[in-house]
């Protein structure tokens, strides 16, 4: 519609100025009714599902599991009802809208008709003629038309004014009615509010509820689609304890990879950790990825539980009981120790770190030889680990170090000469040591701490164990002391170990009688054992003899010195041997002078004499 200066004065009113009415009230109502019918189908499906769900108690009872599950369908049912309500509201709004729009359409049609009648009347024609003249610029002509019909002007002005007023009122009504309908539709809820809010099925709070109702955590995890780890992290200590009544939880934890275990463990708070340690100490104590501080707590708890159990059963005279009691006493006397692994059984196995294995930047695995057991030697080996660690700190005051007394394999017994003279136990033990070292790597890697420098110091038959382990596991340095001889099929040379060139060391004291015995009594003449200090093996030989301020190794040992005696062995304090071991394991072994080669030992004390010198030594005379 083109506006001119004459519009609104007279003669310009047309039907176009009457606002059109949306012609779809009936269509809107029809659509709303269709919506209502379709929603009824939605609601019927949900109500039916609700009915089915109510039948749960007929097919599933697990203490309170059903009461926990049963209410879960209620919100869905309520939401379906809310949607039905929305359909009713929609139909109601559409019905009223249909009526209003129909009335407005009638009003619209009446106004249009009246405008057309007016334009056909004499004043209307005069006004139309004048308006047309104005639009063509013929103002004088327009004035003449009006003047010549001056008697009709009052009627013209009065009628048009009245019509214009009605059109304006109608237009306003159309606008407000449409806005009102739109607003009413906007206000229809589609179940966004109210008590029918659907619970988050994957939420920890639902798991809380399920666990509180006695649902096994594995089932709660399966039901909610969350991982057991995530659900566990959301439980309090009491719920954790309850969750671990489910035996599958123990298997779940034991099956975690180091990375998964580390991530899961770090998601728990101290109270939760405490609850889990109390529930499954044996699993947590040996689980890779769990910090050694917590493994220590778990292993000590497992140890205490077993001691109490054996005591209650009157089995205090068993090797197991005595091994555990001795371990407990030794740990008590070593405040900075960690019981990093414990395998219960008739002959328990254990590994104790002196120093914090979670943070140490320098770690040494101390591997014992023949005749070693937790029962008889845990105290001595913890002492040996302390001696080495003290010497490391004396040599390198800034070192953050831990030494592990690894009594983690079944060694040949003190009188088991066949066991000593064969390789079976060494291979099994070596594989166990490799696993322990790899597990340590995985645990430290999962913790995100800097990878430490790792060394192995092995004694006697333990050197076979170490060689077997280092075929498949890396160490930054290794020291083989008083070796019973390395079987050529395990490691013919130093180069066959996964240790950097120049970091394989060997030491054998002149007065060590049992090393040469082990090397010579091997029961496999086709593939003999090799003295790791020999040129053939290619290690860096180190002296175990006296040096300024330090004592010589006088016996095979490895721990023989006591206050008042003058005997020393490889792991005793104040010896050249322990000082060399400290330097090797802190990375400066390559600068040590070569010493105690076979030729030097022969010149100093031929083997026959050597054996004689050591003949009075008890095998592995550990104090």
């Amino acid at each position, binding site marked *: 519609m083109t506006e001119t200066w004459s519009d609104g004065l007279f003669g310009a009113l047309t039907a176009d100025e009457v606002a059109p009415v949306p012609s779809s009230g009936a269509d809107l109502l029809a*659509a*709303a009714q*269709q919506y209502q019918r379709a929603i009824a189908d939605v609601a019927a499906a949900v109500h039916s599902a609700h009915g089915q*769900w109510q039948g749960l108690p007929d097919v599933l009872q697990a203490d309170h599991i059903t009461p926990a599950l049963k209410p879960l369908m209620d919100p869905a049912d309520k939401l379906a009802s809310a949607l039905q309500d929305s359909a009713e509201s929609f139909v109601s709004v559409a019905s009223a809208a249909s009526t209003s729009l129909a009335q407005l359409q009638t009003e619209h049609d009446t106004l249009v008709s009246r405008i057309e009648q007016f334009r056909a009347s004499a004043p209307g024609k005069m006004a139309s003629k004048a308006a047309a003249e104005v639009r063509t610029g013929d103002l004088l002509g327009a004035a003449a038309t009006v003047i010549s019909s001056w008697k009709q002007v009052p009627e013209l002005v009065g009628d048009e004014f009245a019509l214009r007023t009605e059109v304006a009122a109608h237009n306003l009504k159309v606008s407000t009615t*449409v806005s009102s309908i739109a607003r009413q*539709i906007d206000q229809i809820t589609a179940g966004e509010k109210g008590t029918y809010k659907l619970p988050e099925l994957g939420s920890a709070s639902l798991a809380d509820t399920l666990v509180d109702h006695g649902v096994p955590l594995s*089932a709660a995890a399966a039901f909610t689609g969350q991982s057991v780890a995530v659900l566990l992290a959301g439980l309090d200590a009491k719920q954790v304890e309850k969750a671990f*009544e489910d*035996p599958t939880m123990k298997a779940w934890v034991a099956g975690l990879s180091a990375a998964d275990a580390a991530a899961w463990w770090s998601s728990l708070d101290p109270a939760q950790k405490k609850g889990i340690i109390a529930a499954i100490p044996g699993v947590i104590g040996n689980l890779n990825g769990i910090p050694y501080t917590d493994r220590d707590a778990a292993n000590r708890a497992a140890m205490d539980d077993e001691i109490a159990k054996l005591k209650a059963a009157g089995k205090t005279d068993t090797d197991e009981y005595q091994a555990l009691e001795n371990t407990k006493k030794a740990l008590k006397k070593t405040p900075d120790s960690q019981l990093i692994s414990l395998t219960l059984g008739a002959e328990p196995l254990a590994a104790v770190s002196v120093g914090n294995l979670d943070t140490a930047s320098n770690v040494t695995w101390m591997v014992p030889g023949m005749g070693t057991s937790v029962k008889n030697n845990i105290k001595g080996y913890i002492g040996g680990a302390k001696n080495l660690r003290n010497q490391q700190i004396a040599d390198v005051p800034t070192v953050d170090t831990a030494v592990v007394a690894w009594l983690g394999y079944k060694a040949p017994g003190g009188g088991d000469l066949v066991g000593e003279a064969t390789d079976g136990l060494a291979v099994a033990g070596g594989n166990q040591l490799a696993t322990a070292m790899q597990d340590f790597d995985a645990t430290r890697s999962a913790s995100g701490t800097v990878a430490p420098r790792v060394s192995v110091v092995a004694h006697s038959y333990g050197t076979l164990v170490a060689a077997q382990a280092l075929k498949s596991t890396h160490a930054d340095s290794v020291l083989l002391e008083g070796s019973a001889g390395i079987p050529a099929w395990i490691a013919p040379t130093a180069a066959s170990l996964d240790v950097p060139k120049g970091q394989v060391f060997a030491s054998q004291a002149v007065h060590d009688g049992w090393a040469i015995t082990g090397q010579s009594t091997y029961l496999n003449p086709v593939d003999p054992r090799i003295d790791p200090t020999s040129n053939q093996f290619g290690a860096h030989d180190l002296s175990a003899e006296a040096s300024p301020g330090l004592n010589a190794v006088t016996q095979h040992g490895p721990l023989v010195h006591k206050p008042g005696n003058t005997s020393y062995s490889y792991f005793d304090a104040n010896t050249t041997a322990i000082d060399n071991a400290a330097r090797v394991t802190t990375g400066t072994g390559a600068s040590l002078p070569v010493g105690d080669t076979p030729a030097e030992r022969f010149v100093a004390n031929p083997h026959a004499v050597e054996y004689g010198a050591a003949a009075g030594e008890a095998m592995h005379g550990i104090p």
Partner: protein
Amino acid sequence: MPDLWLDSAGVSAVAGSIDNRAGGVVGAAAMVTQALAEATGAVGSPDISGAVSSFASRFDGRANELITYLEKLGAGLDNARAALEGADADLASLVTGGPR
């Protein structure tokens, strides 16, 4: 351990039934959406069309939520059944019995 009694087939049937009902809601909701689309197209006023369109969108959101919820309940129940069976070795001997 909780005292368990489980009619394995029965639980599966409930789970399957819930899943079927969820499928029913999917079909019915599609009809609703179509009805609302027609309503939107039928209205000659942009204001009313906009309001209907907005309502349709809100309905779609809630309907989808409802469908997902039902599906999760069905699947969850079936998963829980499997987990419960695995959680208790003795359960196998109970699954064909009756409530006790």
